[in-house]
């Protein structure tokens, strides 16, 4: 299919940067998710790849072909919109055939290709209906069929599941993922839903404030966030981030007089990362905390939430900081009781408070 390469691509509206210069290389057949809160520039980036938005600087390469200033119709890409954008005056069948007609395909070819894609998506029974008569999910299926029918070099999807009901979104999520695997199609997928991003992406590009925060596989982004924004944004609830002061292998937290002994392997890295300072942030996922009566850390129960397979315990740890711990759902914890816990040393991360960047562990020999 295709590789996509962005080199120093940027977008300005007046003096305002919608997208700051960014570099991104997307491999052939890869499923890339652009993830970020609204207004972070992810949709603008996608639209620049499609050509619906012009770039203010930089170049875009599709299969080593410079397409920066090509018209959208000349780029050989397909775009799936959040609100489907099916032509309301055409039947589903005609909607799917529409891109083929632009290429001036013969009637037999159109019919053959439409039938193929219709079979793939199992939407044979919808073909005569107008988009207005279809449910949201079926409309999105037709929209996907319209994108697939042309065998484009790459698929660009702008929150294609954003307008669907929650339970239906999961069905469509797996359908899109399956299609991607079957078609081996390079896909760029925009979403603000981090669960969707984790579930679908081969790699996730986390964006915020018009620039890339981190590029990595879902596991990398989840386990090793590169900065505080990514740590907070990924995961539900996000990573616990507790402020403290570092001195001689111990982090002193405020409030309940918690002292955290930093694992041996980290001490050198932290010293280097803080560069003489002492303000740091400890980060750990809710599942990294292990409740243990002999635990070194202590928190006061603020609330507990039953979440089905597990429960989430909200603990006050400093005066106004609340952390989340995943626990066994069977044990009730009364409000305001004290809970002792430890952090799994494999799963603890450290950030510099000043730069907000993650402190990189020293490479073990």
């Amino acid at each position: 299919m295709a590789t996509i390469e962005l080199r120093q691509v940027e977008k300005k509206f007046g003096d305002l940067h919608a997208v700051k210069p960014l570099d991104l290389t997307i491999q052939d057949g890869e499923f890339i998710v652009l993830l970020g809160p609204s207004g972070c520039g992810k949709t603008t980036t996608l639209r620049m790849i499609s050509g619906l938005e012009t770039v203010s600087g930089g170049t875009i390469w599709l299969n080593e072909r410079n397409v920066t200033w090509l018209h959208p119709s000349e780029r050989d890409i397909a775009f799936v919109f959040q609100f489907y954008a099916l032509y309301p005056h055409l039947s589903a069948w005609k909607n799917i055939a529409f891109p083929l007609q632009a290429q001036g395909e013969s009637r037999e070819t159109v019919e053959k290709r439409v039938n193929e894609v219709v079979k793939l998506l199992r939407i044979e029974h919808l073909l005569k209906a107008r988009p207005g008569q279809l449910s949201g999910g079926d409309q999105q299926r037709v929209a996907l069929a319209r994108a697939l029918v042309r065998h484009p070099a790459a698929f660009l999807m702008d929150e294609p599941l954003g307008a669907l009901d929650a339970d239906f979104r999961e069905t469509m999520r797996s359908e899109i993922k399956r299609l991607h695997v079957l078609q081996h199609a390079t896909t760029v997928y925009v979403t603000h839903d981090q669960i969707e991003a984790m579930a679908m992406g081969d790699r996730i590009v986390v964006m915020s404030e018009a620039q890339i925060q981190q590029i990595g596989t879902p596991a990398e982004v989840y386990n090793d966030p590169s900065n505080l924004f990514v740590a907070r944004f990924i995961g539900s609830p996000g990573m616990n981030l507790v402020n403290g002061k570092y001195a001689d292998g111990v982090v002193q937290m405020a409030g309940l007089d918690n002292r955290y002994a930093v694992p041996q392997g980290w001490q050198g890295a932290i010293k280097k990362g803080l560069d003489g300072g002492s303000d740091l942030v400890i980060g750990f996922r809710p599942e990294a905390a292990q409740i243990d009566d002999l635990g070194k850390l202590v928190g006061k129960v603020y609330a507990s939430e039953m979440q089905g397979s597990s429960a989430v315990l909200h603990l006050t740890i400093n005066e106004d900081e609340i952390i989340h711990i995943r626990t066994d759902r069977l044990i009730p914890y009364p409000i305001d009781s004290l809970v002792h816990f430890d952090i799994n040393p494999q799963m603890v991360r450290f950030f510099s408070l000043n730069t907000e960047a993650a402190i990189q562990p020293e490479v073990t020999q």
Partner: protein
Amino acid sequence: MASFEETGPRTPVVEPTRVDRVHPRAKWGKTIRVILTVIVTFIMIIPVLVMIMTAFKSRADIVTPPPKVFFSPTLEGFLYLFTDRSILNTSNLAAERANPGDLNYWQKLALSVGQKINGPSDYVGRLKNSMIIAGTSTILSVILGLFAAYAFSRFKIAGKDDLLFFILSTRMLPGVVVTIPLFLLYKLLGWNDTHIGMIILYTVFNLSFSVWLLKGFIDEIPIEYEEAALVDGYTRLQAFFRVVLPQAVNGIAATTVFCLIFAWNEYAFALMLTSEKARTAPPSIATMLGSGGLEWSAIAAGSLGFLIPVAIVTFALRDYLLRGVTFGAVRK
């Protein structure tokens, strides 16, 4: 208090639970509304009914007090309207009546009121002028308006708001005010009493209206449709024709009818700027009052004939209009 287990359904509810019975008072309300609508419609349509009746009355029936509701219809009014006639003196009349064999229906009708047809009246030509001028100017203003509205709706245009305001401002003073400067201008250009002059005038007059109205409709069409067409391999012009146009059809229909009604009914400019060659029907119906006494049936027939083309167009476009004149207030 009874628990849900005691009062709630014990088996799954499978039949529809919607109740189709309506409270009697609500039913009465509906009937009264329908009756009121019929009455109001009837009152509004009375002048039109009187006009239609008058068009088919004989001269005697028209002036009879009180006005007759039941009468024997004749086409005299249309005879007066469409033909130029001379009154026969007694001896000629007798001679004509003696030999009625090779006369057609209209000639016989004329003979029955003591007249002879000399040829078609001016009105026929004027109705034709009306059709040419109103039709052409409507088509022009809708097409030009459509492209302008699309550009205003979709593209970044320097000073867009000012331009739009300027376009609207052309409607802010009554048209009659500019008739004299316009008359002088047209005299200079040699456009007085020409079709082209009237077509351009009406087109310009309708353009502001059509740009604004159509812009509203095009704004309602999500831009994603065109973007989808663009990435699907169409050029912008193709996307416009294949995606925007079919969806703007309601707006186009509504605009067409409004523009047509204006151009078709326009009286003041037509009176000032046309005399013979390009005179349209509205001023000519009014001037019928002057020649040969008050031919009420001819005036009524003229008005009726004048009404019909617009009525046909409006009727043909009624499905689109109904949706169109709500100005996109109702979302599908």
